[in-house]
């Protein structure tokens, strides 16, 4: 399967990752044109194939964003023969990706050295909660734990409240960084011909999100948890409007924008008020300023106000629910949201490619969630050259399961 106008056309990924972070990485690569072969088994299916009760989903998902475009094969990696087949698949791939706990791939016989033995220039991406080395490398975790370990959870929250739990954005953020590192390793291989083992710890991606606070801490300073406040902008935050639960986000960078804001909100008295005349003064009086903004905006329509303020050069946007996102013509025009459907999937919106390319523009979703093992004719038959009889026999012995 080659896609002439997709930028990563010709790149093949053997994908052992499950859950969210790793699959998001390989989903990005596949949207950019890489052929991604997902390796699971009936005894180790990916999370979307099962109910997710803690999340309130009592059945398997019919559509799973992070598995789009992927080919699916079954291999029961507890069987040595399946491991041999997995290595043959890796030997035909440019990249292998995994998200087991540190050390598991090696125990399976699929460690970096094992893979390099069958494919001397393999790029292995190991994506885990805490990395492949270090005293915590055996720690298991999910998105909220990555953010807790990495400090982003502590730095996020109301100033007088507890830390805040990060959700899937933390998984996917780790996956996006993993995709960047994988591309860099591909360039390195093109230049040097060498193999590479990428060790991405999701908690360290959370650390990058507080990179500034970590520099402060290294100098003995104690970074503050600012909530919705900004250290140099006021007004800045999320304000209620006339409609219930329809919030307006605002960020005023300078005096000119402050003047534009009071003009657009028809509050001329604000323009001559000395407490708010300069950025420093506004910061000093920001509690009063926030109270005043709340009063002014209480009679305003959130959407109309955001548009007016943008026209006047003030950074404003309504706090959007997914319903707003789904209706937005801008995101649709950019193919950031795209409608997808299949025989068992009624039309629905999904997230498209992460960027738009002027030449290699064949990026995005080509097919939806694969059924378990649906691409074995191509992968086991065509790529690995296994006969139907051989495959049937491997199924009987639960090597393919």
């Amino acid at each position, binding site marked *: 399967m080659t896609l002439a106008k997709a930028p990563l056309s010709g790149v093949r990924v053997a994908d052992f990752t499950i859950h969210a972070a790793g699959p998001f990485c390989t989903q990005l690569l596949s949207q*950019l044109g890489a052929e991604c072969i997902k390796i699971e088994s009936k005894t180790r299916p990916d999370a979307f194939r099962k109910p997710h*009760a803690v999340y309130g989903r009592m059945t398997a998902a019919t559509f799973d*964003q992070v598995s789009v475009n992927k080919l699916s094969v079954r291999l029961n990696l507890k069987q040595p023969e399946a491991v041999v087949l997995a290595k043959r698949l890796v030997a035909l791939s440019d990249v292998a990706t995994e998200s087991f706990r540190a050390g598991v791939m090696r125990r399976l016989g699929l460690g970096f050295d094992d893979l390099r033995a069958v494919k001397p220039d393999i790029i292995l991406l190991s994506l885990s909660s805490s990395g492949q*080395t*270090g005293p915590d490398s055996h720690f298991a*975790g999910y998105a909220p*734990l990555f953010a807790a370990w990495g*400090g*982003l*959870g502590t730095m996020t929250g109301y100033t007088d*409240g507890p830390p805040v739990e*990060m959700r*899937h*954005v933390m998984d*996917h*953020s780790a996956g*996006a960084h993993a995709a*960047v*590192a994988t591309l*860099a390793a*591909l*360039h*390195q291989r093109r230049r040097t011909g060498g193999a*590479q*083992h*990428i*060790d991405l*710890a999701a908690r*360290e991606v959370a650390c990058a999100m507080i990179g*500034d*606070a*970590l*520099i*402060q*801490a290294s100098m003995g*300073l104690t970074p503050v948890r600012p*909530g919705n406040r900004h250290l140099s902008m006021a007004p800045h935050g*999320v304000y209620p409007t006339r409609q219930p639960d329809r*919030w307006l*986000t605002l*960020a005023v960078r300078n005096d000119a924008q402050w003047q534009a804001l009071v003009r657009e909100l028809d509050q001329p008295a604000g323009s001559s008020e000395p407490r708010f005349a300069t950025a420093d003064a506004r910061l000093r009086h920001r509690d009063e300023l926030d109270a005043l903004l709340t009063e002014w905006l209480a009679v305003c329509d959130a959407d109309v106000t955001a548009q007016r303020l943008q026209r006047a*050069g003030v*950074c404003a*946007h309504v706090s*959007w629910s*997914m*319903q707003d*996102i789904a209706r937005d013509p801008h995101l649709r*025009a*950019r193919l*950031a*949201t795209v409608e997808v459907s299949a025989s068992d999937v009624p039309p*629905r*919106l*999904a*997230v498209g490619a*992460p*960027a738009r*390319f002027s*030449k290699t523009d064949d990026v995005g979703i080509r097919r939806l969630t694969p059924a378990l093992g649906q691409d074995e004719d191509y992968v086991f038959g065509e790529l690995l050259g296994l006969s139907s009889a051989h495959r049937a026999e491997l199924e009987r012995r639960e090597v393919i399961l």
Partner: protein
Amino acid sequence: MSSKDSLQGAALPLAGCRVIERSRTVAAAYAGRLLASMGATVVMVEPIEGSRLRTAPPLLDGTDHSALFAFLASGKRSLVCNLLSPEGQRTLARELQSADILIDDTPVRERVARTLDQDSVASRFQALVHVSVLPFGSSGPKADWDAEEVNLLHAGGEGFLLPNGLSSELFPDRPPLKIYGHFSQYQGGCMAALGALTAWWAVPEAGGQYVDVSAQDAVLAVGAFALQRLGDGSLEHRSTRRFRYGGVFEAQGGFVELLTLEDRQWTALVELLGRPVWTQHEALRDPLERSRRGDEINHHLREWMSRHDVDDIVQRAQQLGVPAAKYRTPAEIIRGEHERSRGLFAPLMLDESVQAEILVAPFQFRCTPLQARQRVPALGEMTAEPAE
């Protein structure tokens, strides 16, 4: 750079890659930072007064330095250039002649005057990857909208969903809450770096091209699960988007995050708690029933956590296979044994007298370790150097 450093530099993943960066926003600067951390030569083209990020908070007390800028600019070079002057445009053209990637966040309407519009760049530099990263992208009806972080997080859908869990329970009437710092911009920057390296990969077949990245798109991409839930028929809201049980708990000496998704993790959690009577109900063996009784379970967990030390809880939990973590402070992370052992931080020269430490990169390359020594470029440091 010592000879040892440059030898090591030649082996880095992106050695030889030349990037020109024009950044007013964290997104563009972070894209350049990711590439620089992997060995690319990244030149910030700054206006005469310097990038506005040089004075962006948080500032380091007692110095003139911005902690944010130090994090973003570490490992880059600085060239001062007035792009509204013919001389500045010539300097930029000279730099772009030998560059592989241009990362630019100049608003679309200001580009022509600076010779940075898509057509002008494409016609002059045919092998150049030209990455535009803007709050709402460079195409579409809102391409000219402007935004700061707080706007972007909410334009991408994640802001509306925060906080969830304990914070939302404690303060149900407060406005939604942003993630610390520049989370949306970091996502935009990460996608810009991905777009840059992807288009650069295709240069042998396709030549240079223009790549349009939007921070709003990036926030939505990392928040895609909420759109998936909408397709499933659930409109998520911060007050209801919570794990049925688990989450943030206050313990002695700090906060714990606890999340058990698998049956075996629940069994291990029961073990951690010392098998109290309430955990022994037959019905709680069923994961679906546990979810239905989530509030009751959390009530018991809160009571238990409040009586135990945070470090003890996490250590025992991880031994038993219960996913639990401590909410660590930046100071704990900087001193962390795990981080130290992984070489996560490196010395950073802010200037001749000020030294700090900095995260090298959020990924490691085990065959060719990334460079440890880091420095922040003085404004226009390259201007004094003769052109190559």
